[in-house]
C-alpha cells in the first residue's frame, strides 16, 4: 500500500497542497471522522428516535404504576394474569428453534453429503419456498390447512389413514409451532447450508474414505464446525418469534397464548401501557440472554458486520 502511494504521489500533478516532505497529514484526519459522523448521523438519528427512545419509554412505562408513581405493580399484574403465557411463549420459541435446527441440519446435511444429484437439486429447489412468505399469509394458510376438517386432515382421511371422526385439529400450540417452523426453516437451513458448503471438504472426504457413514460424518465432523452460524440463526429465529403477533392471534384462539397477543390486548382494549410494557420488558429479558450469544458472535474483528 505504501509503495503505491509514493508512486501515485510522484505521478500526481502539483497542487496547492503541501509538498511530499510534509509531516503525516494530521489536519486531514479530523475532517474524516467528522465526515464519517455526518454520513452516519441520519441513520443514528432514526435509530435513536424510533428505537432507543421508545425502548427507554417502554422500560420507564413498565415501572410506572397506574397512579403515576414508580413501582413494580405492573410486573405483579403481568405475572399474575399472564404468568402461564410467559412460560408458554418461552417454551414455544425454544421448541420451534430446536425443531428448526434439527430439520435444518438434516436438510443441509443432505444437500452437502447427498450422493444423488437429482434429489439434491429437487431438495434445494423445494426447501426455499416459505422463505419470502410473510407470517400473516402463513398464518392464514395454516388456519384452514390445519383445522379439524382442513385440507391436511382431509388428505389424511382420503388416504385412508384415519377416520373422519378421529381427525384432530391443530389450531392450538401445535399449530403455532408448525407455522413458526414452516416459516423459519428455510432461513435457518439457508444459513446452515451456506456454512456447510464453505467447509473444507478434505476432512469430509478423509472420513468417508475411512469408512464412516454419512450420518456419522454429519454429526461428528460437519455439525461441530458450523456451530457458530447455527447459533446465530437460532438466536435470530428466537428474537423474531418473540415478536410475531399475527400467527398466535389467528391460529391459537385459546389460552395459554404468546405474550405478544396479551400485549396487543392490553393496549388496544384497555389502553394499559403499564402492564403491556411490563410484558415487553419480560420479553426483552428473555431474548437478552439469547441475544448476548449473538452479539458475541456478531462483531468480527474486521468491523464488517455479519
Amino acid at each position, binding site marked *: 500500500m505504501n509503495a503505491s502511494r509514493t508512486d501515485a504521489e510522484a505521478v500526481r500533478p502539483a497542487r496547492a497542497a503541501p509538498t511530499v516532505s510534509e509531516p503525516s497529514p494530521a489536519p486531514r484526519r479530523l475532517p474524516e471522522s467528522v465526515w464519517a459522523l455526518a454520513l452516519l448521523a441520519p441513520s443514528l438519528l432514526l435509530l435513536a428516535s424510533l428505537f432507543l427512545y421508545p425502548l427507554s419509554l417502554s422500560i420507564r412505562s413498565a415501572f410506572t404504576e397506574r397512579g403515576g408513581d414508580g413501582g413494580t405493580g405492573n410486573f405483579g399484574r403481568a405475572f399474575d394474569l399472564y404468568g402461564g403465557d410467559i412460560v408458554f411463549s418461552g417454551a414455544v420459541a425454544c421448541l420451534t428453534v430446536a425443531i428448526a435446527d434439527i430439520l435444518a441440519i438434516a436438510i443441509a446435511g443432505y444437500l452437502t453429503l447427498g450422493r444423488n444429484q437429482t434429489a439434491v437439486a429437487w431438495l434445494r429447489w423445494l426447501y426455499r419456498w416459505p422463505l419470502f412468505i410473510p407470517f400473516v399469509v402463513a398464518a392464514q394458510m395454516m388456519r384452514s390447512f390445519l383445522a379439524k*376438517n382442513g385440507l391436511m386432515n382431509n388428505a389424511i382421511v382420503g388416504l385412508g389413514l384415519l377416520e373422519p371422526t378421529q381427525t384432530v385439529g391443530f389450531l392450538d400450540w401445535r399449530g403455532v409451532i408448525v407455522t413458526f417452523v414452516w416459516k423459519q426453516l428455510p432461513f435457518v437451513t439457508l444459513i446452515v447450508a451456506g456454512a456447510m458448503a464453505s467447509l473444507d471438504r478434505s476432512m469430509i472426504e478423509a472420513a468417508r474414505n475411512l469408512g464412516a457413514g454419512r450420518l456419522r460424518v454429519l454429526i461428528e465432523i460437519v455439525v461441530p464446525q458450523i456451530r457458530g452460524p447455527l447459533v446465530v440463526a437460532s438466536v435470530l429465529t428466537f428474537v423474531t418469534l418473540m415478536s410475531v403477533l399475527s400467527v398466535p392471534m389467528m*391460529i391459537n*384462539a385459546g389460552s395459554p397464548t404468546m405474550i405478544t397477543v396479551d400485549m396487543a390486548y392490553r393496549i388496544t*382494549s384497555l389502553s394499559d401501557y403499564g402492564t403491556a410494557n411490563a410484558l415487553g420488558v419480560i420479553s426483552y429479558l428473555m431474548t437478552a440472554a439469547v441475544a448476548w450469544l449473538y452479539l458475541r458472535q456478531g462483531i468480527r474483528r474486521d468491523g464488517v458486520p455479519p
Partner: protein
Amino acid sequence: MIRKLSMLMASAMLLALPAAPGSAQTTLNVATAGDQNMVDYINDYLGPKFEAANPGVSVVAVGTGPGDSGSLKIFEKLDAQAKAGVEAWDVDVAVVHQRGAAQMLASDLLAKYRDEIATGKLVTRDTADNALGADVGGYVMPMFHSQIAIAYNPAIVPNPPKTYEELVKWVADNPGQFGYNGIKGGMSGVGFVMGWVEAMTGESEKLEKGPYDPALKAKIEEALAAMKPFNAGVTMTPGNAGTLDMLNRGEITMGPVWVDMFYTWVADGKMSPEIKLAIIGPGLPGQPMYYIIPAKAASQDLARKFVELATSPEVQAEGIVKRFNWYPGIDAPHVQSQLDEATWAKLFTDVTPDDLATKGKPFPLSDYFTEILETYERVAN
C-alpha cells in the same frame, strides 16, 4: 440507473399522495367499530344512499375492529385531536359501543344532537338514554339492537341445554363440542361470560341496574372460578366470526353468536341453514350500537343529516332489518309498519319476541363489566 431510480421515486411520491376526492366534493368521514359487517353496511348500503340524496358528497367508511378495542381506537383519535387543539376533527360520524360512548361523553368529545334531528323522537327505549349506567341522553342515537344467542346444530344436538346449569353438564358430557371466543376475541364471548356471571351469582338486578356494590366482588370471583373447569372442556374460537366459522365447518356443534351476524352468514351462504338459535336461561345480553357525532366534527350539518337518514323508518326497515338482520334501533312499531309480515317475522324465527322480552338482557353496569373482565383473566383463564 440512477435516473431510472429517481423517476421511480418520483412516481412513488405521487402515488403516495392521499387519494383525495376532487375539491368540489365534500367527504363525510364515518368511523365504525365492530365486525366487517358494520363497514359493509356503510359501503354497500347507507353510503351510496346518502351520496345519491346529497350529490357532491362522498362517504368514506373506516372500520376500527370488533369489540371495545374498536371503540377505544375511535376515542383515542378524537381525544388526541381534542388535546392537540385541532379545530375540525377528521371523524364526522362514528358508530361505537355503549362503553365507548360513555367514555367519550366523559371526556366532552360528543355533540348533543338528538333533539336537533327529526328522528330523535322515534326512539323511547331506555338504551337511548342509558349506556350501562352512564347518562347519554341527547348525545346518541341507537343504530340497531343486537342479541346474543346460542347457535346449535339440531342434527347432532336435538335437545340443546336450556339453562347455564344444563350447559355445564352438557359440556362435561361432550367435551370440545361447545366453542366461544373468550373475552379477547369479540363481544359474543364477553356476553356469554356476562350471562354466566348473572346466572351463577343470581344477582342480575344489581349487576344491571346498580348501584355498584364492591361486596359483589367475592361472588363474581366465585362464579368465574367455576368457569375454569368449564373452559377446560370447551374449544376456544378466534372471534365472533370464528365461532360461526367453526360451527359451519363442524368443528363445534354449539356456541354463542350474534343473531344478526348469524342470519347474515346464512344469507351469504357461509352458514348452513340447518343451524338453529336459542337463548339459554336466565338470559344472554344484547346491546345497541350508537351513532355519535364528535363535538368538533368537520361537517356538523352533513353528519346530522347522515344520522337522520340512518335512523329514518325506511332505512331502518330496509337496511337494518331486511338486509343486515339487526333488530331496529328506533322503536319497533315505526319500523314494523314499513315491512311486510314475512320479512318482519324472519327476525323472530328462532328467537321469539317473548324470548327477547324475558331472556334478552342488557350488559352489566360499566364498573361491574370491567371487574368481571379482570377477574376472568385472573381466575378463569
